[in-house]
Structure formats: C-alpha cells, structure tokens
C-alpha cells in the first residue's frame, strides 16, 4: 500500500512540475499576474509530493518490503538500519528519486528566499526548474520506477558491500546537492535571458545560490575522495576515473562561474560569458549524470547502468544545451558590456582565472569523452592514462595559483604596478624560503618546492589582502562576509595544494609478504605483523590482521580486514589507517601467500589529510560567503519594492 502511495505521489509531483512550468512561464511572458503567482505554491507542493514519495521508499526499506523490486535487489533483513536508509540512494532508481527530491528542495528554497526578487523573475526561475523536474520525473516514471513490484522473495540481495559505509552514505546526497544546485544559477541565467534583463541584478540574485551549490559540490567530491582512500584499499585519493571527472568538471566551471558572477555584479562586465558558464556548469552536471547512469563508462563506479536509460538522458541533455544555446544566440546580441578595465585590474585577474579553469575543464572533458567517442565510432577500446591528467593539471595549476594570489589583491578597474610589486616581493621571498624548508625536511624535488611555494604564495598574499581591507576600518566586523568567504576559499586551495604536492611526491608504498611476528621498515616506521584473527560481523565474516606500527617513541595498532559478505561472494578490503596531521600510516591486507604468510600493502602518506582539510576550509568559505549580510538584507527588503519592479518586469 505505502509503495503505491509513493508511486502516486511521484505522479502528482510530475503533474505539479507541469503546473510549475506552464503557468509561471506563460504568465511571465504575457503578463498574467495570477499565473505568475502559481509558481511558488506549485514549487512547494512539488517538493511536498516528492518528500512523500521519498519517505515511502525509505519506509519500504526500513520495513524490508521485498515485494518492491528495488528494495529486494538492494537491501536485506540483516543490513544495519543506517545502511537501509542509505541504500535508498544506493542504486539507480533511488538515486534518481533523491536527485528529483533535491531539485524540488532547491526550488522550494528559491520560493522562500526570493522576496527581494521581482515576482516575474522568480516565476521564470521556478518555471525553468520545473522543466528540469519534468525531465527527471518522466525519466523515472518511464524507465526507472523505484516502486515497481515483484512477487516478494524471502530475502533481499543486500546492498553492494562497498556502499555499506558511512562515507558513502552521505557522499551522494552531498554531491547531488551540488550537482542539482547548479540548476538554480542555470535557471536564473535562462530567466534573465527570457526577461531580457541581463544586468547586474540577476548576477546578484544568482550569487548566493551558486556559492551554496559550489560548497555542496566541493564537500561532496571531497567525501567521495576520502571514501575511495580508505574503502577501496588502494590508498589513492583521486584516480581520474571518468565518474570522478564527471563531478570535477561541473566543479571547475562552477568555480569559474562564482568568480565571473562577481565581475558581472560588481562591474557589469563579462555578462555573456557568465551566462554561458551558468549554462555549461549545469550541462556538465547533466553530462555527469549521463556518464554515471548510462553505462557508457568503463569505470570502477559504474554501479548501475543501462544503455536505454542513457539515450533518454542524452536526449534531455541535448534538449537543455540546445535550447539554452539557441536562446543565448537570439538574446546574446542584446548583451552589451561597455566596461573598460586596464590590464592590471581585478577584472583581468578574474578573466585569467576563468580562462585557466575553462582550459582545465576542456582537458578533463577531452580525456573523459575521447575513449567513449573512440569506442562509439567502432575504432576499438582505449583508455586515457593518469599521466595525461596529472601533467596538464600540474602545469595549469601553476599559473592558476600565481594569479589567484595576485588577483585577490588587485583593485577593480585599475591598479598601481609599483605598489603591487612592493607587495609581491616579500611574498616571493617567503614562498622560496618555504620551498627550501620543504626540501630540507623531505629531500630535493622541484615539484615540491613549486607546489609548497605556490601554496605559501597564496597564503601570504591572502594575509596581505586582509591587511589591505583592515586599513582604514575600525572594526573587523565591518569587512563583508563575502570577503572572508573568498579568503577562506583561497586558504583552502593553498592547504589542499600542500596536501596534494607532498602526498604525490613523498608517499612511500610497498607490497610485502609477512608472516606472524615478521616486520618491515618503511619511512622510519617498523610495521610488525602480529597475527591473523577470524572475525564475525552482522552480515559478513572475515579475517583481521593485527599490525603494530612504531617509530620508537610512537606506537599504534592497526587492524586491516578482509571481509566476505554473506549475501555475495565478494571479498572486501578494509584498510587499517592511523590518521595524523602530518602523515597517515595505511595497511591493507592482501591474500594469503602460503606458509602462514600474508601479502600486506604498507603506505606512508605525508600530509594526505591536508587534501580534505583544504576542501573543508573551502566549504566553510562557501558557507560564510552565502551568509553575507548583503544577501540577508536583500532577502528582508520589503515586498513593496518587489511588487513595483515586478509590474515593470512583466511588460518587458
């Protein structure tokens, strides 16, 4: 009964999405006030129905209702409750439902936090979001209904053991908040084009939403990387796997969009470019969904895939990109930016930032798409090696970080070269010193000097930017939150850079065969393999290795495991990790080698935590920027102004 309610609510949500699209868009176009007012209640009702539908699916999982096919194939009576809930989005159908729900929630948020925005604009934004909803809800109802019934088996098949993990329970919702959140700036851009008002105002409205989506995307990707690190047992944190790239590309473009929006709002420049970035950021989110869900990928993550479904998403993707670019072509010639800025200005710095980010996106896109196209053309299978991505990313990061440090200091319009040089010289000296220190500590490596030097460059210059802001201001609180958000974001990038540089260059990895009582020395730590024990978990059994790692003063026990889940014959590796701010010790259990020996993988990974620490700092920066008083004040501004503007907007 309850699954049917869920199914029915899904259909009602689709109906509501139609209403949310048709009436507000038509109303905004022809100036029917009554139709415009349909937008907000429709968006809220759609969110309500999807919440109901989602709750019904959660119920089906908690109640072990195996007559629902999706539950039967992804859950099990022995599955711990937390994972029963996270299993809701553990496979294709449920993760789409989550996608749709999150989209509706973003729409609902827009309906609540848009009082300062003209009604007609909000109506258009919600209408566009409605179109996206229609696409995904139709897709679900036609090809991937999570509520399909089957004759109930006695026991479910269980959730993929890899997904039975806290990191992966929270990774998809976080990532989807980011992915789907990019629909909001997209909708604002399209709405602004439809209304013919591509001025600074739409950029101002769009900024907090972009920042929020970016923040979620950042944390979502970081969670995925953290999960891959400890769960896959390979000790890596990023593999340039197509699915990872699929989330990284929207992130890159969203980052460019955040910066470009700043220029559009503050200076009225880059208008057309900003609109394009908003379109591409969301298109890349859709492309990511297509890549992950269609099965065209040779990837470790292609968990649930089906080519027919891919055709639908690809068609939808083509529709979204095609129609928005057509609109851009029609309205694009009305976009005029008569803004002049000199070569040495913040505008130039942000332009450089945008170009570099877009080039990196292009590199990643080509490396991801090329094998797929090659295969589709019937030219055979191939894959693109990690060195391709590593090389370009490293090379392009250098100018990106150099510019990042400088651009945060520059004034809008025009800055003074002599004064700038005065600020840069000490920064250069400190950065070089930091590079030398790293060399003394870890041993010579040009890459490490460069990477750490650049990170210190960014940190130092961020400090200078704060000092410049404080000058002439009495109170710290008089500096806008947006500025602190930027500083935190940049510091996060610096911390991340240090982590990536030191981990990539100085990590030591060794696969060894160890018997009971034998030890191996790695990077100053002695790893002693004490013994192997049999263990029993709630829905698995396995072996646990007991390993001591010690460097003389410090000693720690590590417990790498090899698990076999009852529901499948699939063995799983659980690494034993001792996390530390300056290094991780990582032990993974391989297979028995005979003679009581076991294959063991040992790692010493300096500064790897800084990678995720950096992303957390970036995320905090995003939150701080969203809570800028400017936006809050904007939200509080009264309806009086909104109403007067809306009547003007409707006639345009």
């Amino acid at each position, binding site marked *: 009964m309850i699954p049917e309610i869920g199914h029915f609510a899904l259909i009602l949500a689709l109906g509501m999405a139609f209403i949310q699209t048709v009436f507000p868009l038509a109303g905004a176009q022809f100036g029917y006030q009554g139709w415009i007012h349909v937008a907000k209640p429709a968006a809220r009702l759609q969110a309500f129905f999807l919440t109901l539908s989602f709750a019904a699916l959660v119920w089906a999982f908690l109640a072990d209702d195996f007559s629902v096919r999706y539950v039967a194939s992804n859950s099990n009576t022995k599955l711990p409750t937390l994972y029963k809930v996270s299993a809701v989005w553990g496979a294709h159908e449920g993760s789409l439902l989550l996608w749709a729900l999150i989209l509706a929630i973003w729409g609902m948020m827009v309906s609540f936090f848009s009082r300062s925005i003209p009604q007609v604009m909000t109506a258009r934004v919600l209408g566009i979001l409605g179109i996206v909803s229609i696409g995904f809800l139709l897709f679900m109802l036609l090809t991937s209904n999570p509520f399909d019934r089957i004759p109930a088996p006695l026991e479910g098949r269980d959730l993929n053991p890899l997904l039975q993990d806290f990191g992966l329970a929270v990774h998809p919702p976080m990532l989807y908040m980011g992915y789907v959140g990019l629909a909001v700036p997209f909708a604002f851009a399209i709405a602004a084009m439809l209304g013919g008002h591509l001025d600074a105002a739409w950029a101002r409205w769009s900024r907090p939403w972009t920042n929020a989506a970016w923040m979620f995307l950042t944390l979502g990707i970081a969670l995925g990387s953290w999960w891959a690190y400890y769960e896959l047992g390979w000790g890596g944190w990023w593999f340039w796997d197509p699915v990872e790239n699929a989330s990284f590309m929207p992130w890159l473009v969203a980052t460019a969009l955040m910066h470009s929006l700043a220029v559009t709002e503050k200076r009225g420049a880059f208008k057309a470019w900003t609109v394009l970035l908003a379109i591409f950021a969301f298109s890349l989110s859709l492309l990511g969904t297509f890549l992950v869900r269609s099965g065209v990928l040779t990837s470790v993550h292609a968990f649930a895939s089906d080519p027919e479904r891919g055709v639908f998403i690809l068609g939808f993707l083509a529709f979204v990109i095609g129609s928005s670019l057509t609109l851009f072509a029609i309205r694009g010639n009305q976009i005029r930016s008569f803004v002049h800025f000199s070569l040495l200005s913040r505008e130039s710095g942000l332009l450089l930032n945008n170009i570099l980010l877009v080039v990196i996106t292009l590199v990643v896109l*080509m490396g991801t798409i090329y094998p797929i196209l090659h295969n589709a053309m019937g030219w055979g299978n191939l894959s693109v090696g990690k060195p391709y991505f590593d*090389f370009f990313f490293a090379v392009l990061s250098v100018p990106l970080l150099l510019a990042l440090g400088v651009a945060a200091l520059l004034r809008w319009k025009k800055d003074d070269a002599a004064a700038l040089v005065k600020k840069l010289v000490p920064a250069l000296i400190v950065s070089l010193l930091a590079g030398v220190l790293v060399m003394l500590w870890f041993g010579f490596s040009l890459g490490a000097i460069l990477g750490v030097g650049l990170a210190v460059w960014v940190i130092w210059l961020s400090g200078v930017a704060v000092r410049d802001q404080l000058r002439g201001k009495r109170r710290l609180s008089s500096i806008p939150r947006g500025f602190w958000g930027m500083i935190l974001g940049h510091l996060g990038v610096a911390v991340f850079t240090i982590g990536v540089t030191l981990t990539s260059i100085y990590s030591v990895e060794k696969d*060894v065969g160890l018997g009971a009582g034998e030890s191996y020395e790695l990077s100053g730590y002695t790893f002693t393999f004490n013994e192997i024990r049999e263990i029993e978990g709630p829905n698995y059994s396995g072996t646990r290795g007991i390993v001591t790692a010690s460097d003389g003063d410090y000693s720690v026990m590590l417990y790498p495991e090899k698990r076999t889940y009852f529901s499948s*014959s699939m*063995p799983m590796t659980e690494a034993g990790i001792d996390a530390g701010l300056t290094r991780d010790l990582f032990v*993974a259990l391989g297979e028995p080698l005979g003679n009581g020996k076991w294959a063991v993988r040992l790692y010493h990974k300096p500064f790897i935590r800084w990678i995720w620490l950096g992303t957390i700092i970036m995320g905090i920066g995003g939150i701080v920027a969203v809570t800028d008083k400017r936006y809050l004040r904007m939200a509080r501004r009264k309806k009086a102004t909104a109403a007067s503007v809306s009547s003007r907007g409707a006639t345009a």
Partner: protein
Amino acid sequence: MRTHRKRRLSMVLGLVVGVGVAVTLILMALSENINHFYDPTQVVGGEAPQNHTFRIGGMVVDGSVQRDEGSLKVRFDLTDYKEQVTVSYEGILPDLFREGQGIVAIGKLSDNVFVAEEVLAKHDENYMPAEVKQSLKQVADYKEGQPGAAE
C-alpha cells in the same frame, strides 16, 4: 564602426587560434597517453605493440594461477577462449581477482609474457569488464552469461 568591427574580428580570430592551439596540444598529449585494448588473440597474432603500455583483458584460466611461495610474484594465463597469454605481476591482486573471472591488466609485452603494472577486477560480482565481454562475444563458442556470471 569599422574599427569596432576590426577589433571584434581580431578578437574572434585570436580566440579561434587560441582554442585551436590548446586543442592540438591536448590531443597530442592525449595520443601519447592512450592505452589501447587488445584481447589475447590479437596479442598472440602480433597486433599489440612491443615496448608500449597497453591493456589486455580476458578470463583468468582455471588452475593457471601460480604463486612464488612466500613472495608477491604471481603468474597466470588469460584467455578469450581462443588464445592464451601469460601474465606476470608482482604485488597484491585486487579483491575480485579469481580464476574464471574476467579481468583487465595494464602493462607491457616482454618475450611473449605480459608484464602487468596493474591488474583490475571490477567491484561487482556479476560484472565483466565491458571490453572483455565485447571481445568474448566475437568468439563463437562463448555463451553469454556462462563464465562471467558465477553467481
């Protein structure tokens, strides 16, 4: 107006040239980092390059896995049910590596032995690497779902 047009034209030209150069550079780097896929028949037939990294995929032949006692060296045969290639590897094999399972290995050919740098098996018990499946489909005596679907 004319200078405006000229400026616009030079901007567009500059953009086209810039994008062209970038794409060419990327493609060049791409072509150096591509690992082609070959099945055992192609490798035995001499189609695979010598001294260049490529990927090979097939089913691990039952009973072919030989381990050096107490060390991490391992040798096994890969088949597409037509030809076989011996693969040598030193290190920890992935969790899903088993005899009779489809795998993909990345490495180089040396004296008719494929020296693998990396061995990949997918994290799904029903899963066969798409490439292996495709190559097996071309072999007549392969029946879909027979060897891969151990479950």
